[in-house]
């Protein structure tokens, strides 16, 4: 302090002090101001997104889910399902449903990413629920462990989705779909929200890291080359038996007929 106070009578002390004071206040103000603007912008953006989502909802979803997403006889309430659920159902094309049959099936999505985000924001604004994730947020390649994921998959998923994630039958026409070609974010959101007949795998049941391992294993299964030759659908012995009869025995019968044909 003594060294600084030595200059307190310096002729430039006043202007320098003024400069420091001005720049501090200015910078502080601009920083504070910038923050405020951003918050306001984000809020207004979110508000428009929600408004936009509400409008899309009213047009495309409310006929079944009710004008305020309160649900009706044929469709459940969406209050509290969260953005994750909306992102999964709409971005995989399951919603809007093509027909009210056993379960919604995966198809080309009706809405684009912006509209889906709006719908998600609207539904999330009704009550808190699991948030949507993006593929970029999920560092499954870095944080996942394939072997652990395989073990978890066999423990939790294979009984419905088949050992190689090819899908399987459930009761009365319902089914667990194949997981081949599903985006990581949708796999993650499905575990989080438990769509259709699927149970919810909350973060207590499967930690986020374990979920990433499962995604890594599924992606590995998707990319694994057919090691032993034609994979025959990876559905187990049924296709193998069919091939043994049709191709195996079929060829032998053909050759036996040829071998016993009388020379002409």
């Amino acid at each position: 302090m003594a060294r600084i106070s030595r200059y307190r009578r310096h002729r430039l002390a006043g202007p320098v002090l003024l400069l420091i004071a001005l720049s501090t206040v200015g910078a502080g103000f601009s920083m504070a101001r910038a923050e405020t603007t951003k918050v306001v912008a984000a809020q207004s953006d979110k508000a428009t997104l929600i408004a936009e989502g509400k409008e899309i909802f009213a047009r495309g979803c409310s006929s079944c889910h009710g004008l305020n997403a309160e649900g009706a006889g044929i469709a459940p309430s969406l209050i509290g399902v969260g953005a994750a659920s909306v992102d999964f159902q709409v971005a995989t094309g399951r919603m809007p449903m093509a027909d009210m049959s056993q379960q919604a099936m995966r198809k080309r999505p009706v809405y684009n990413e912006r509209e889906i985000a709006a719908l998600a924001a609207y539904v999330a604004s009704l009550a808190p629920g699991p948030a949507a994730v993006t593929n970029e947020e999920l560092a499954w390649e870095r944080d996942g462990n394939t072997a652990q994921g395989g073990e978890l998959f066999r423990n939790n998923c294979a009984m419905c989705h088949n050992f190689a994630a090819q899908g399987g039958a459930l009761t009365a026409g319902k089914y667990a779909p194949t997981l081949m070609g599903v985006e990581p974010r949708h796999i993650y959101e499905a575990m989080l929200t438990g769509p259709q007949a699927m149970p919810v795998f909350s973060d207590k049941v499967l930690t986020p890291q374990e979920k990433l391992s499962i995604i890594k294993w599924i992606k590995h299964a998707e990319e694994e080359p057919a090691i032993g030759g034609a994979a025959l659908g990876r559905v187990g012995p049924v296709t193998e038996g069919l091939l043994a009869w049709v191709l195996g025995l079929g060829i032998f019968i053909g050759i036996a007929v040829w071998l016993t044909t009388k020379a002409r």
Partner: protein
Amino acid sequence: MSARERVAGTVANYVDERTGAAKWLKKNLKKVFPDHWSFMLGEVVLYSFIILLLSGTFLTFWFDPSMREVEYEGSYEPLEGLKMSAAYASTLHISFDVRGGLLMRQIHHWAALIFMAAMVAHLLRVFFTGAFRKPREMNWVIGVGLLTLGIVEGFLGYSLPDDLLSGTGIRIAEAIIQAVPVVGSYLAYFVFGGAFPGEVFIPRIYTVHVLLIPGIFLALITAHLMLVWYQKHTQYPGPGRTEKNVVGYPLLPVYMAKAGGFFFIVFGVTAFLGAVASINPVWLFGPYTPGQISAGSQPDWYMGWLDGLVRMAPPLETHAFGHTISWNILIPGLIIPGIIFTGMALYPFIESWMTGDKREHHLLDRPRNNPNRTALGAMSLTFMLVALINGGNDLIATHFDLSINQIMWGTRIGIIVLPPLVFVITKRICLSLQRADRDLVLHGRETGRLVMLPHGEFIEVHEPLTPERAYLLTQHEQLPALAVPETDEMGVANPQGARGKLRARLSRASQEQIPKPSVDEIRELESGHH
């Protein structure tokens, strides 16, 4: 005589002087075998068995039949560091780290599926042509034994790798053992050396799979072939073929060349399948843990019908005197297969009792000429097919967008309704074919050529059959049905009782035929109506 011939002669002479083989070979190398493609189905079985022995021996060099827990350190990354049995780890080792190991595993498994498929096809040929009739009933029984053993052997092989799928199969086998009334749980404890899964079943089934059953197989196949050799092969009817001769080619050189070539073809096609088509990808299933299961767990096809029966059984259980009887497993898992295999083994005896035919038969039946037997075969086949379809009900549901419940109900109803329906339809088709044969013999082949006669009448020209074809269509014999005597010689009514009545009824059904053209009918036609 060239030098080569002299050497060959010296060697042959050397062997003959010490074994006396020349006389035996001279006789047997000239043995005649009839030629027909359906006679080669049994050969496919035999050759697949040889492939199984060879590829299986290769696999034993690396397979470790132990349930000792190990940590996987092989080259298949997605299973890295997982705890598994030594059996599973060594199967992975064979698949990924042994040169040619995966190919051999796949050849072994494809050969097993083809072995069973060819066995069933061979059985159907023998059944539908009546080749099991006297004197071949014993060989038929041996064949049924081979089929049963084949199913067991295949299932044990499927269980050995100790992957998730094979463990699931073993679990179901345990449930079936437990379903045996009263002693079931004790039997299961005995088989598994304690509670499931225990630590002993892999070494135990390994011994049975590589030693006991192949040994019995070798013995039974030898007996099966020796009987064919001794009784001579059956042949299809035709001009010059009688119950007393065999028309065909001698063993050497024709049959030896054909059969030898066919062996290499079977080996080649099986190896090709093993090279291009994945079978039982154990690395995808993961190690077996009793807490895990996969959707679409299926047995290999020869067990599929059994799985289908268990899947369609309604949930029935009774509790009595401190015991639970699980009818839903006992009936489809033990009682129905028991009835099917016992019935199959006894069929030659049942048929000869029904028809009263105790004579030797070396000429085969054309299936249409025995409508009752053909219909019975088609009926049994329908039963098995419906059960087999239900064995894959989950895959049918997902791949054809159907409801698994509907498929199950469809097969539950189908397995009761369809077999009798198929019996009636097949029998009618056979009789219609007989009628068509009769028309063909009496009126010749319709040429489709219309001719106008001088007085304006149109007729279609019928071309008479060749004598060979006419012979083929009329050579079969049509026995009269057995009759129940009203009274015996002492005047006692109905001497054979209900048994006799049943036998007469069955005999009537099995002798239901369209009368083949009689000599008189043909003579009358030949004397010039057409």
